[in-house]
């Protein structure tokens, strides 16, 4: 794909630019807007919502190899409607992180020809031969590859889907921008990573985010820092901060049985402790994360500070380990660092 051609997608699909990362702060005129008190219907809602401007299927997994090393994988399928009437375009991202290397890849597709798409039941999300599919949302396999690296993983959920914000209506700013947002944070993951050095058997825990909206960011919000953590006691924690002129903080505390409690604003504290020079810019790779209501006080550190997704819209995404009040593993995503 020619970079020039798809620079335009910066305006469409993903989160980093003047008007919010990748234009997520632009108007939603003509698109359907998320409404409070959503009434989800499954498996239909696992599929695409073409009336909304953007949507993604976002899988991350922290994995431990038989060789004792930490690994992380990311696989994302983005959908974007260029206008309320279409056309639809698709973008896939591949990420694979080892303690000393990071592999990234991306694919693009037009809508409507079957090169990329999502079917709710049986569930399948694909672009080219990259595919996340299975009989249902709880039991999936994932295959994707780049010329340098590949993964082939099995995912099975041992807990329910959880809904962020107010029953899945996730507010993203003080003035009410919002998205529909739910996750499946209970995947047990196992399989094989194909690395330049050879195959590695891995096992670990995965987290799949589903989110769609038409205007998720305030125009002056520049980017976000997003954490998903699996705590050793079986709890899960998702936390994000939207940076910029109208900062916004949010956290979801998820008990092992899948009960979710949302926390807003000052309830969450995020503090960068250390920055690293990544792809020519300073990016925080060690954080202090506090959620006092749950006695959480963690130091979160990147497994590999250079987990840079050198895609058309570049961003940082990689596995993390956390210590402090709890011990945890998970994923960190950071966008909008210039």
């Amino acid at each position, binding site marked *: *794909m020619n970079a*020039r051609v798809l620079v335009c997608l910066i305006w469409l699909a993903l989160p980093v630019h003047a008007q919010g990362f990748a234009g997520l702060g632009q108007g939603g005129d003509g698109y359907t807007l998320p409404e409070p008190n959503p009434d989800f219907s499954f498996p239909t809602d696992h599929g695409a919502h073409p009336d909304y401007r953007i949507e993604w299927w976002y899988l991350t997994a922290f994995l431990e190899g038989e060789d004792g090393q930490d690994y992380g994988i990311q696989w994302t399928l983005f959908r974007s409607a*260029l206008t309320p009437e279409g056309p639809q*375009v698709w973008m896939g991202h591949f990420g694979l992180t080892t303690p000393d290397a990071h592999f990234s890849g991306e694919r693009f597709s037009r809508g409507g020809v079957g*090169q990329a798409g999502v079917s709710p039941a049986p569930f399948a999300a694909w672009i*080219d031969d990259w595919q996340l599919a299975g009989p249902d949302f709880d039991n999936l396999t994932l295959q994707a590859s780049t010329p340098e690296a590949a993964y082939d993983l099995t995912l099975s959920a041992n807990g329910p889907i959880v809904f962020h914000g107010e029953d899945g209506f996730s507010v993203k700013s003080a003035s009410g921008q919002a998205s529909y947002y739910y996750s499946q944070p209970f995947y047990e993951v196992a399989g094989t990573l194909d690395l330049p050095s050879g195959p590695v058997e891995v096992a670990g825990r995965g987290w799949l985010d589903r989110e769609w909206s038409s205007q998720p960011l305030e125009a002056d919000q520049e980017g976000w820092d997003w954490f998903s953590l699996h705590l050793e006691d079986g709890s899960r924690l998702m936390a994000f901060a939207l940076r910029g002129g109208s900062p916004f903080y949010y956290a979801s505390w998820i008990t092992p049985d899948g009960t979710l409690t949302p926390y807003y604003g000052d309830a969450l504290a995020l503090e960068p402790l250390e920055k690293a020079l990544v792809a020519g810019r300073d990016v925080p790779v060690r954080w202090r994360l506090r959620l006092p209501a749950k006695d959480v006080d963690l130091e979160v550190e990147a497994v590999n500070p250079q987990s840079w997704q050198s895609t058309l819209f570049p961003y940082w995404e990689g596995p993390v380990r956390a210590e402090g009040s709890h011990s945890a593993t998970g994923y960190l995503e950071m966008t909008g660092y210039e």
Partner: protein
Amino acid sequence: MNRAALGALLSHWRRHLVQLLTLVVGLALATGLWTGVQAINAQARLSYDQAASMLAQDTLPRLEGALTLDDFATARRAGFLVTPVLEGRLPRSTARLLGIDPFTSPPAPGTPDLSEPGDLTAFLTGDLVFVAPDLRVPEGLPETRILPDLAPGLMLADIAAAQAILRTGAISHLLVLPQAGRSPEALADILPGTTVTYPAPDGDIARLTDSFHLNLTAFGLLAFAVGLFIVNAAIGLAFEQRRPLFRTLRALGLSARRLTALLAVELVAFTFVAGTLGILLGYIVAAALLPGVAATVSGLYGSGMAGELSLSPVWWLSGYAMAAAGLALAGGQSLWQLARLPPLAPAMPRAWARARAETLRWQTGLGLALLALAALLATFGEGLIAGFLCLGGLLLGAALLLPPILSLMLDAGTRTARGPVAEWLWADARQQVPGLSLALMALLLALASNIGVGTMVGSFRSTFTGWLDQRLAAELYLTAADEVEADAMLAYLDGRVDAILPIVSAATDLEGAPGEIFGQADHGTFRDNWPLLDAVPEVWDRLADGEGALINEQLARRTGLWAGASADLGAGGERTVLGVYSDYGNPRGQAILGLAMFDATFPDASRLRFALRAAPDDVGPLAEDLVDRFGLPPDRLVDQAGIKAFSLAVFEQTFAVTAALNILTLGVAAFALWASLTTLGTMRVPQVAPVWALGLTRRQLALTDLVRAIILAAFTAALAIPVGIALAWVLLSVVNVQAFGWRLPLLADPGGWLRLSLWALLAAGLAAALPAWRLWRLPPAQLVKVFAHER
């Protein structure tokens, strides 16, 4: 010493300005026509390369067959990195349309910038297309934006938008991007009925247009040769006239080596001046002819070419090189003689008296040898180069034979002469043949090539028009937007027309080269009209029964497969050749299967185009009905006359450039004649003076000069006609077959030949008029002086 000697040498040119002008203009014309043609060729080559490198199509393998975007998705989901491409000609235009998928196309020249907000959306929805800078955009298309990187004649659109414009659901091919561990052949296994083709070392277009450019080059070379005749005449004359001067300079102590060196310096100076003028002239010629060439190339081969010149330094240098080579060729002989000249060699004005029998015998021998070579090449030669060598042999041989033949004719005339004046006239004419022979040769070449090319174009035109009448037998040609509309149209047309003949086709390799297969219904339209060159008995019944295929003449000649043979039709399978049909204007191979067989072989081919047969009176109302009922844009319902007009326009364009070069060549030949006669006029004074002294008036002498020039031109024209016909035959039966793959009958055009001969006589008359007028007005004192000067 050098300076004085050079001054003395150059003083000759100051006193003979016309000679100087002749030399410079002759060389400039020769160089100009040659460099002009080269500029056109270079420009074309550049455009082809640019077109070939679009989307890196010149380097990537491709998968061909009856493909759709579904197949593209299938290939991508199977893990193959492919990108779809749709190529086609814009309706009612010579522009080529290229449909691409911006999401999967490789980074390559000509990819548009869609980074402005809204551009990607507009591109994907077909509201924005990109065009090459020179493209004239037909009406009714969406917003167009100029993309400088785009190859000439090209319009770029999103693939879905391109499908809508071309009214097809198909794509032309899938480009296979490099990918470790996966071969394009493995993809062909997934998509049955497809084949992998690899890019040819030189592009498709370059190969197709080779013949056209070789044609232009041949004309350029011809013009150069004709121009050189002028230069040779002028230089030869100048050397002869300066022999007394050379003798004086040598006698004063100037060494032969130094004298030769000084004259070489003089030639270099001429090279520089005439070369510069020639290059400027070449630029003008090229700029004037380029739009025509571009239109030809896009019409004939469907490939674009920039309408503006961009010239490389190599081109400028080659112009000088050509001028220098021309001067060396024309002046080398004289220089060589001079270097060996004894210092006090008699300085006799023998300039025009070198017509020795020996020279004539030598010319006769070489001329006959060249003609024999041409005949051998025509019979046994293979390839386009052999074809053009044959042309060269024919023309040069005929030119060399001209002076001996003219001498023979004039000898015969002398024998019939009665009385001293008539005898002197014939003898004087014969005396002038050597001096005029070069100019007359140039005239012969120009006339012969005019007659030859004119006959070829005429033959081609009438054959082509007749063929179009046969081939375009249906009254209306209809294109549906999609299958649904096609069904609605068929339902509506049922009972309203005499016949509905579907037009279906699929792209595939035919005997290893890209081509197309058509499906043809069994109908009287074809049985009665289709032009077959070769066929098995009951060919139409057997075609309808699916026993084999028809192939076009191009394919038959390329492969040597004629009726009864078996041909590999790629995705169409191995088929018996039932017949061969003529297919002018199509550079590629083509085959026809019976409709039932075609449907079975290519079930996915789109069925959106139809030929309609109707009573002539019904055609108008029916067309209006169709337009009203289905809201058809003009390009989707075309009547026979419209297609014919378009085809003929392409044809006329093809030969417009040839005609222009022809006229230029004739002009150069006329100039050569004028130049020779003018210099001859001044040289002949000593020969004319005695006759004048014997009582013939200057008026009578001038008139006889004029008549003699016209008679010589008439003889030349008479010889040029058979040479021209031979040339036409070589063009039609040898060069055309090699270049385009078809052979045409030679149709005589006596009226045209006569007209051209008259033009030649007029040109000769005009060329002789000025020297004759000068002779008429020559002061008697000058004639008397001839007797006073001791020579």
